[in-house]
């Protein structure tokens, strides 16, 4: 398995680069990012939200198997759980470098404020991490017993292979069913971090949580699809065509729901015509139009591709469609930040001067030659350090998935079922 060694090496170097960048950031402070007081969350939180999104797929695919009895998908439940575990691990890791005082992170556990959606998120994400780990663990039990592996497996010694297999089957199902609501919750709660804030008109909408769920179902399933495609390879593609078609359909279907939410959201933001809403719309269709177009058009293209008969049947189309979707969803996460932070909440109208919305300037938190201290918008673009740190979850996901695929049998055709 030469290929997997290269991938592991790549993953290792991504992690290493990100740790070095993170170390540099810890030493100098978050001044090395391009975030400032008026634009206080950036690439890190967007990437975090992205990985929370793709983490859904695992349990959604495995639960569909049990809930709707879709046998065709069954061979992929292991890969699905693995992708979920890896992604949520990546999401959890991404949050850490965003904390200015990561050394005090324990304060969340010692003095939790249960009114904070961030605390809710810590709880559901930890739960999901545990559930997806157990899901992978339970599904691998029979194989690992056969191999005689003992790590975390000692207790199966006293049981026969059949018993272990029955146990694995029973508990895989139970975990998938318990996990489904938690999978929905991680998106709901992550969305609530934003949606609860009346200070930011772009976030403050009840459609955000359900929309997060729909995007998560689409992008999460697409991740399972990609890993599954890579794992079975072009050669065995035909054998599992049915499963891939179902996954493509799940992706396309949830994108329909997503676009429905997006349109409703835009209408509600736009129809009343308040100055705040107009400002947001002018940001998304003006200054950030290319990013917003990416967010809309890439997934729309994928949706169309995955609905066509030909598209669903082609390895290449499924692959390309999924990648386009990932890019679109990443743009979606970035677009959570730009319009929200560049529409300053404290805007005032001065009727006497005919001014409807004047943004009260915010102090940046940095004094630098030739740069104003007070601004009413901030052209945030991540710094090199931020890009470096952001490699962390990508490295972790690649590492966990490759290592697991290398060590254990996730591939359907080799399984004794």
């Amino acid at each position, binding site marked *: 398995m030469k290929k997997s060694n290269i991938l592991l090496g790549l993953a290792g170097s991504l992690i290493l680069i990100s740790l070095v960048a993170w170390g540099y950031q810890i030493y*100098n*402070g*978050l*001044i090395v990012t391009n*975030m*400032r*007081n*008026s634009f*206080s*969350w950036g690439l890190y939180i967007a990437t975090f939200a992205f990985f929370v999104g793709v983490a859904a797929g695992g349990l959604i695919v495995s639960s569909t198997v049990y809930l709707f009895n879709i046998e065709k998908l069954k061979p992929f439940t292991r890969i699905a759980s693995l992708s979920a575990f890896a992604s949520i691990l990546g999401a959890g890791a991404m949050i850490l470098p*965003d*904390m*200015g*005082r*990561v050394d*005090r*992170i324990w*304060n*969340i556990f*010692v*003095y*939790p*404020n249960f*009114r*904070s*959606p*961030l*605390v809710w998120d*810590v709880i559901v994400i930890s739960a999901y991490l545990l559930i997806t780990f157990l899901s992978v663990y339970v599904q691998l039990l029979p194989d690992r017993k056969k191999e005689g592996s003992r790590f975390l497996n000692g207790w199966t010694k006293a049981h026969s292979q059949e018993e272990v297999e029955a146990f694995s089957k029973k508990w895989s199902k139970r975990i998938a069913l318990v996990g489904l609501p938690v999978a929905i919750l991680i998106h709901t709660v992550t969305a609530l*971090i934003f949606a*609860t*804030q*009346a*200070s*930011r008109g772009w976030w403050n909408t009840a459609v955000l949580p359900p929309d997060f769920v729909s995007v998560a179902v689409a992008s999460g399933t697409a991740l399972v699809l990609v890993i599954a495609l890579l794992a079975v390879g072009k050669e065995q593609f035909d054998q599992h065509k049915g499963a891939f078609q179902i996954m493509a359909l799940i992706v396309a279907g949830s994108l329909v729901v997503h676009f429905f939410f997006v349109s409703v959201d835009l209408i509600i933001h736009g129809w009343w015509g308040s100055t705040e809403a107009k400002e947001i719309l002018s940001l998304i269709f003006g200054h950030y139009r290319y990013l917003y177009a990416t967010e809309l058009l890439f997934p729309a293209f994928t949706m169309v591709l995955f609905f066509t008969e030909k598209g669903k049947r082609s390895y290449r189309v499924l692959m390309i469609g999924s990648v386009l979707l990932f890019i679109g969803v990443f743009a979606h996460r970035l677009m959570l930040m730009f319009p*929200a*932070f560049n529409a*300053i*909440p*404290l805007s*005032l109208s*001065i009727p*006497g*001067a*005919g*001014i409807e919305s*004047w943004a*009260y*300037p*915010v*102090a*940046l*938190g*940095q*004094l*630098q030659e030739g740069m104003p*201290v*007070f601004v009413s918008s901030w052209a945030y673009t991540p710094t090199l350090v931020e890009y470096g740190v952001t490699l962390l979850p990508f490295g972790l996901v690649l590492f966990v998935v490759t290592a697991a695929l290398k060590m254990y049998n996730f591939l359907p055709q080799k399984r004794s079922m």
Partner: protein
Amino acid sequence: MRLGMVIDLDRCIGCRSCAVACKSHNAQPPGTWWNRVFTPGASFHQAAVGKDGDLQMEYLPVSCQMCDNPACQKVCPSGATYTDERGVVLIDYERCIGCRYCIAACPYGVRQYNWEDSKKAKERAGYEKGYEYGYPADCRDKDGRLVYTPNRPVGVVEKCTFCAQYTSSGEQPACVKGCPGKVRIFGDLDDPSSEVSKLVRKRQTVRLKEELGTSPKVFYLAATKPIR
């Protein structure tokens, strides 16, 4: 006790003395301002706004509005932001984990982050080495939480504390003392005989972004300039 402030916009001359007093008394590093004064509508301070030759120039000082329903406190995952028994919203500089959720939550843009070590920031801005300004000692609340320290740690959030280091022993905040126009009145909103209570009762007051339901304890007396 519910400490609050009334700001009489009729008397404000936009001199920014309060912002400077605030900045130096509270040892704010370069680029950080707990208290700002701007001319609403104008692209720079002290510029008139208007149309067809009808010009006007009002000023609006803004610092923490000391919300009774503070979004910043509700989102704070570690309880670093809290309201003390006097109704003052404070930050425990030893507990803040620097997640900046509160900055996103506050509708008034008053929260400031320590993006780098304040000593380093001062050096970089060209301040003389070893030059320190501001109240020199730490201030802790009755539970021992650090609510003022001259050089805040890197990676924590800070903002107006109603000058905790002064008002906890009955003195007035620096902005109130530093204002030449006696624009700012500070006191207990729970005490009906206090000047702030009387003003809030008798005069027409405005609170910023009232529609968001944050219930600020900073009240503005609108600039009236009667014309009839």
